[in-house]
């Protein structure tokens, strides 16, 4: 029986078209398989980040240590306070920080221990290895801290400005030009990088780096891949790209802080 002059056959065809269109519209809007950055919950404002086994450790706007995620339903948890912090590095479950006075402090079981004699070291940056070892850059030289002493490593000859520990003595360093070096197996090897680098973070098998131009890179199996730009979702606005400032890594996660102090997690490490 026709409806408004339309035969049942055409009617069925139209119905099928509507059906397919609705499924296609719903099915098309699936994100591509590329990794993407997910902004952390809770509007924390932080300056530096280090990844560890329990998530991210960050220096907040009050220059104290915050962790993400916090306990149930609390995105952020403030950790034990100490002197104002300048920089942070973390192993799997131990963290180290550089205070604004230039002292190095160790954070474990939610308490701080200052290395009282570290001030004369003139530390400019710190790093931590997966096995909780501490690496420092003193007067531009890479050193490992063990048994209360600083020990030179193979990249001692390089003037270093940033360090990212991997495991044992294995570590990546950046020189003042942004060139990347790997300290491993008693050698210091220059690693070609796609850009001049500014910040680095590493874990066994993985290096993530923030380039001078603000791009973010990941190196696995000696291969570099460019990571996407993080986007922020704000009320009334289309997703807006943001400018990375710092980067951190743990075994399964990569973290990023942007210039407005927001924290992001990379969706996929596979």
């Amino acid at each position: 029986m026709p409806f408004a002059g339309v035969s049942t056959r055409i009617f069925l065809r139209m119905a099928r078209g509507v059906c397919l269109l609705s499924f296609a519209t719903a099915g098309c809007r699936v994100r591509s398989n590329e990794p993407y950055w997910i902004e952390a919950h809770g509007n924390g404002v932080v300056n530096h980040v280090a990844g560890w086994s329990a998530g991210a450790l960050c220096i907040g706007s009050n220059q104290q240590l915050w962790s993400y995620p916090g306990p149930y339903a609390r995105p952020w948890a403030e950790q034990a306070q100490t002197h104002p912090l300048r920089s942070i590095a973390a192993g799997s479950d131990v963290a180290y920080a550089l205070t604004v006075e230039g002292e190095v402090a160790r954070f474990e079981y939610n308490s701080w221990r200052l290395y009282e004699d570290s001030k004369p070291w003139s530390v400019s940056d710190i790093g931590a290895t997966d096995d909780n070892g501490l690496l420092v850059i003193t007067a531009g030289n890479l050193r490992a801290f063990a048994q209360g002493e600083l020990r030179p490593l193979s990249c001692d000859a390089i003037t270093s400005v940033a360090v990212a520990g991997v495991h044992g003595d294995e570590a990546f360093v950046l020189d003042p030009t942004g060139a990347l070096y790997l300290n491993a197996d008693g050698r210091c090897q220059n690693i070609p990088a796609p850009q001049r680098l500014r910040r680095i973070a590493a874990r066994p098998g993985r290096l993530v780096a923030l380039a001078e131009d603000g791009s973010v890179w990941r190196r696995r199996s000696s291969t570099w891949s460019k990571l996407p730009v993080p986007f922020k979702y704000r009320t009334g606005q289309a997703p807006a790209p943001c400018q990375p400032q710092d980067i951190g890594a743990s075994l399964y996660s990569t973290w990023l802080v942007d210039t407005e102090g927001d924290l992001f997690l990379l969706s996929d490490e596979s």
Partner: protein
Amino acid sequence: MSDIQSPIPWEIAFIRSWQKLASTALAALAVASIIWDLRYRPFLYDFVFAPDVIAPGSVAARDALFPYVAVGAVVSLGLGVRTLLQARRGRNGFLLHRELLCTGLAVVPLLTVPAIEFEHPLFTALLVVVFSLAVGLAASRETVAWRRLPDLSRPQAQVLVALAYATFVSVIGFIAYWRYITFHAAVADLSAEVNAVAGILRHGVPTISVGAFFYDGKPLPSPYFNLHVPLADYLFAPFYALYRQPSSIVWAQVLLMGSGTFGAYLVGHRWLESRSGGVLAAWLYVLTPNVQGFCLHDVHANVIAIPFIMLAVGLMEAGHAKGALAFAIMTALCREETPIYAIGLGLYWLFSSEDRRRFRYGAVVIAVSVCFELFVSSYLMPQFGGHPNWYHFNLFFDGTHSGAGLLEALLLNPLGALFFSTAQVKLEYFAISVVSVGGLALWGWRAGWFLVPAVLLLAPAWDPTFFSLGVNYSAPLIPAALLMTLAGLQRFWMAAPASATNEKAQPLASRRVAVAAYALSCALLSNYLYGNIASKTYKLEYGVSPLRRENQRNYLDIIGYVDTLPPYGTAEKLLWQVIDRVPKNVPILTSNLINPQLAHYDISFAQYFSNGNPPPEQRVQYIVLDKLPALQTPSEADVARLRLDQRWKIFYENASGVIFKRR
């Protein structure tokens, strides 16, 4: 001889055409505004919602509006001159609907602005209604010449209703399933319900192990009845018996929720006295954002009451009283609070018409509901060490947390209860739920009995989850919103009796087109804003942060919604390989992220949820942990610890997960 008509005086021409002139100018301004909106989209939100704040960067954009307005003014001036000349020649009775439709279109760009629907629900509701009124008016005027509205044939109606159901099941089912396979489902409550359904097949009653902290020191799995009485889970059990994976329960819920489409058709067919009306009602049900959302907030037994109520009312309207009674009783049995839903239905049958048979059926439904509620709350739950939970309510007359205290507060302090119901979150939820069909529910008081459950279960509640779209606690309002809407629709649809004379039938046809256009416009816009079928966003995650995997936009820190569905990539595929390798029928402990996918095991604990005594780790043979980057409960520390623990060895591992086996 004076055949040549003398021109109408200018003054009279102005008086006759001023509405047309004004609406033309408005339409021109609206078109200019729409073009500007599309060109300067980033400024639109602040332009409307912070009109008093002129950001320095927005001045140039604001100034750019003037050229568009100038062009619009010139165009409207030209059209105005033509209108005036027509009026001078004696034309009268100008139609305004096209200009008003153009004016109404001005709200559309604003509706596409991210997040406005949840940030400003009341204002959004107003925009939807204004635009849909313009659509309805235009539809009415354009079809004014229609002599009669042909009804659909039976097969055509069947096809359209089947299409509505298929759309609901395939689109919402797809999203619900996608949510599940990409690990966006939550322990609370998919794990709990999957646990319970699997328990039905194993033990005959719903059992639970994932909520171990409720059963300290007791053997597990334990009957669920101390916490909930989810008898609707028995309806999921056959689906699960056919395919023993949690995904079958996810799909089963969608199939059952979608079945309300048929109930809506039967109601619409009867109340709107046409198959077209029935089809309209069926599509309104499918497009209801709340109904869709319930399928994406994991699985819950109480939401199944919604399609059952629709089917009960529909079958009663279609004359299948016994079937209607069966669905009414099934409504009451869904979960411990659904007898209250069924009481609303019983009251409707008692008092909505002078029909003795309905009265008797209504009385039976109320009697069964009251008996079942008393049985559950006074006997069954206490037998298992539980009781109805009053935690979410705080409106009690004298501080006594009981049903009686709640009823006293509502009956003896109605103004207080009314004031308590005007909290912003409640008004917003009301607006979101009612605007989905343009507030027609406000004219549908004939079905107002369905508000009784909402008054009893929502008015006294404080918890914002009770007023969050898609969260199962918010369900009591939905049968009322749906059925009152259809009753309201009936008032406008049936403006004249079906047997009216031909003179009356003509305006009736265009009136029905207008009402249908208005309702569909509201429903489509609501679905676009708050729903999930070809919508602006997908409402994917529920619960407080950071217990979610995504974070794009959120409402009240309860609903997390995203522009695009998350990917099913290598990480997820590898994690499914891990899940598939977990030995069957062994006690397991899993990380929270993957517990819903393994909650059909008789003993299935979630790492940072189950707790209880003895600790879950001591009760299991296998521990299954994911390695996905997590915003919520990172598993890295647990994997590292178990690698070093001599009591455990690795049974299987890949890049996305690891299974530890007790040595």
